[in-house]
């Protein structure tokens, strides 16, 4: 294992200390609890709070989206593991500015059950919550059982759009509606070329052969749809777009945003080569692209591979995507 770390068991703690050391003018721990990150910038009273939670090892997801115009808090678990319900409850309490809190997170068993427990805990304090689950990964379950799908990079669009809606002063009901609407318009699929290593485990949890590519693999190494011989960039782009548009068709005149997301070890040059083909295919369909996102937005540490996300925009979602947003790990200022 070749990781630039100290002790594996202090991986999350030291990462959090690094964040606080670097960005304390923007984000901070909740009352010194290194497992809950909140904004350190002021928040307008009455704004709907938006929170998320999840395991570590996916930066910028999840905590990287705590920022202005984005989400307000994130509870931080161990690598690939949910944080506890108590941390979530503390976070929800801290991110209630008087108009309730939207819990916006990926559809994973542990996170779901803990959030369920947490929302029950805060109900006692009369904090209103709504839950919207991210389930954008088309490879994780067929359309007939969409509710089982996992949440992957598409959650970034949901954070961005819901964050803008909350910033506009909309109600919890409305922010939840818009988050759900954005997610209903979002589809993602990924491919993986190499595994990643959970620091405490010290060796890859799965393996991919040198000449193979895993189609539809999850960001924790969940099995995908199929293993194929290594493909060229254009083939990968075409294959993913085919799956996505089969699931959520696009038509001439549609406008979308596209995210080409590196899983960790894949060079930016390669993401651009894939984007080139995605753009070509969409152009040929008469679909235009608004504010493409190319880079690393949701990773699995040193995993090689990428995912493509398509979100179909309309007149409500588009200005929300464009509205200013900035966190230490994300901004749309240059997009």
């Amino acid at each position: 294992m070749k990781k630039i770390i100290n002790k594996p068991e202090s991986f999350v703690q030291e990462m959090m200390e690094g964040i606080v050391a670097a960005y304390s003018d923007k984000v901070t721990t909740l009352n010194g609890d290194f497992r809950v990150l909140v904004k350190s910038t002021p928040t307008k009273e009455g704004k709907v709070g938006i929170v998320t939670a999840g395991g570590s090892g996916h930066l910028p997801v999840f905590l990287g989206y705590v920022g202005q115009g984005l989400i307000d808090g994130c509870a931080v678990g161990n690598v690939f593991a949910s944080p506890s319900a108590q941390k979530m409850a503390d976070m929800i309490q801290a991110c209630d500015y008087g108009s309730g809190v939207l819990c916006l997170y990926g559809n994973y068993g542990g996170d779901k059950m803990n959030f369920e427990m947490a929302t029950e805990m805060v109900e006692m304090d009369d904090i209103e919550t709504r839950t919207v689950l991210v389930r954008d990964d088309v490879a994780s379950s067929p359309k007939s059982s969409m509710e089982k799908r996992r949440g992957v990079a598409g959650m970034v669009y949901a954070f961005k759009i819901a964050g803008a809606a909350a910033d506009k002063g909309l109600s919890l009901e409305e922010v939840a509606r818009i988050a759900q609407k954005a997610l209903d318009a979002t589809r993602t699929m990924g491919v993986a070329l190499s595994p990643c290593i959970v620091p405490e485990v010290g060796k890859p949890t799965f393996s991919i052969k040198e000449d193979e590519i895993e189609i539809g693999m999850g960001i924790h190494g969940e099995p995908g749809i199929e293993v194929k011989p290594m493909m060229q960039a254009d083939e990968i782009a075409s294959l993913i777009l085919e799956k996505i548009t089969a699931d959520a068709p696009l038509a001439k005149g549609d406008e979308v945003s596209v995210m080409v997301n590196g899983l960790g070890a894949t060079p930016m040059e390669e993401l651009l080569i894939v984007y080139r083909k995605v753009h070509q295919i969409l152009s040929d369909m008469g679909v235009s692209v608004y504010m493409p996102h190319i880079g690393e937005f949701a990773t699995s540490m040193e995993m090689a591979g990428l995912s493509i996300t398509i979100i179909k925009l309309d007149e409500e979602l588009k200005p929300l995507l464009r509205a200013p947003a900035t966190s230490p790990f994300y901004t749309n200022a240059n997009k």
Partner: protein
Amino acid sequence: MSLQLETLRSVFQEISAVMHENRDYLIGLDQQNGDGDLGVSMDEGYRAVAKFLETSEETDLGKLFMQCASVFNESAPSSLGTITSFGLMGMAKSLKGKSEASLEDIASAMSAGIEKIMAKAGSKPGEKTILDSLYPAIQVLNAEKDSDSKQAFAVALDAAREGAESTKMMRSVHGRAAYYGDKSIGLLDGGSEVGRLIFEAIARYLGK
């Protein structure tokens, strides 16, 4: 057996010991179709609860179980860790106000616990989870509520063993294992083994 703070201490110590002994075994099971953390989280969760009980002075079993649920979740917020907490919370409600519980009380508290799990985790027996060993065992326990504790838990353990074994033929529909679909058939569910181990530990305690 009549359950009170002290009994609870010893029982959780026993469960914790059993989970620790089976740490690698459970990791191995979870690695087949999950992420391999099962042995770690069960070991840590039960150890934390056992340690908490060592010093706790709370005698209200309801409050005590509620605290155990929190402690478990704090130290092991994995899927099965959280499910375990749900179970403890369900038991807590059922035992509220009692500082002592009879076998009948225990059996119906366990039923309440499993109901809570099913409600919160959206699962039921037959879906290749911990429920497949817990559910039949708790059914038996309720049926045997008038027997001697040792005898009742012995029969319950048999049911838990059988239930765990039966998960081999099942297809996973919950958690990470569900992504393996038909490939999960033939594999023993790690969570169902955790359920069996709980009953193994209680039996071991009662046999002492």
